[in-house]
């Protein structure tokens, strides 16, 4: 039997009736067309599917959409300003060349926002440790860490 859900996605109310098996990432990509959230591994390892749930980074491939009743979900599509100005963390990834193919990037950016919200002054070592749940197959970690440092500084302003 289908379940009926009410949640908010990128600030807009969403009412959905889904098969209980539906994963959050499937709700976002297939039902809502928000394809910025990527599926890299589908086994909770790579972090490409990371979104914010009530301001916390969560792997959207490893939670059911039905667990999101009443939650506030934010995806990569929801972080830029209304006029299209990039979020400081997005701008920092662009500036520091924090991506190659871009597949891991949306998850990296969402994790980085959660990281900076909790540790505004994180050291380089702390950033590396906190990004443990996000893998970059292009192995661009050096510039990713630099981007997070830049982004953290910009978010603090």
């Amino acid at each position, binding site marked *: *039997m289908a379940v009926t859900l009410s949640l908010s996605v990128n600030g807009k109310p969403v009412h959905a009736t889904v098969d209980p098996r539906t994963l959050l990432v499937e709700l976002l990509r297939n039902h809502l067309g928000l394809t910025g959230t990527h599926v890299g591994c589908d086994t909770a390892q790579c972090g490409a599917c990371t979104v914010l749930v009530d301001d916390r980074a969560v792997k959207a491939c490893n939670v059911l959409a*039905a667990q999101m009743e009443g939650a506030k979900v934010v995806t990569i599509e929801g972080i830029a300003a209304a006029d299209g100005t990039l979020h400081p963390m997005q701008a920092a990834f662009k500036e520091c060349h924090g991506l190659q193919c871009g597949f891991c990037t949306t998850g990296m950016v969402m994790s980085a926002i*959660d990281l900076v919200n909790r540790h505004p002054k994180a050291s380089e070592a702390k950033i590396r440790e906190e990004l443990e749940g996000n893998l970059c197959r292009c192995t661009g970690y050096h510039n990713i860490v630099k981007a997070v440092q830049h982004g953290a500084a910009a978010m603090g302003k």
Partner: protein
Amino acid sequence: MYAFELHHAKSVADASAALSRTGGKALAGGQSLVAAMKLRLAQPGHLVDLSGIPELKGIRREGDHLVIGAMTRHADVVSSEAVKGAIPALAALAEGIGDRQVRNMGTIGGSIANNDPAADWPAAVLGLGATVVTSKRKIAADEFFKGMFETALAEGEIITAVSFPVPKKAAYAKFPNPASRFALVGVFVAQTGAGTRVAVTGAASSVFRSKAHEDALAKDWSAAAAKAVRTPDANLNSDLHGTAAYRAHLVSVMASRAVGATH
């Protein structure tokens, strides 16, 4: 994933009734259960979601005990001042579970109900001699963990909280598998009001107490004493990650690191 029905429980009584009626499984954070269902390693016909039950959340100090609600997320244990003040070893243990995203969803109750042989929480629960509080009764840690993925929980019984006695000293050290970050061996050591306790996870089919380490540390609480103990490897796991002999060696190394980290 196989098809299932989902129920959003509003209260513990509601959840127990739904579980008993359907023979289903309780859904906590889902970080192990959803993954197992996707791989078709688990196929419950019904899931009862516990996330909407407010009384299962939160951390509070009750006299000489620290009580952690079953649906408290690992990340909330990490950042809790009450935990850091009473039993900092628990905050450190929670911070070593999985990765940040997993800690944001996964719960203490879910972890111990699942009783994965390599999970971290069972080591703390057994190592401190905690009490598992359920919808029906209170279960001592020594009676709770029954075997691989097996606990004393009955059909329809739900963990509501875990009550940890505040120890004199405690610490946890683990040797994580470099890929999965699960404990190849993790050891929790504690000096409690009820004596010295040492619990080992990751090494065998379920968490267990190492009597030899407890005896040695009761006489001499030192890293050297912990390291000198020889752990028998008879019942330990051998797999592609390590032999039983290697794990037996790691038990004493992790025990000594844990003792060295207490203060």
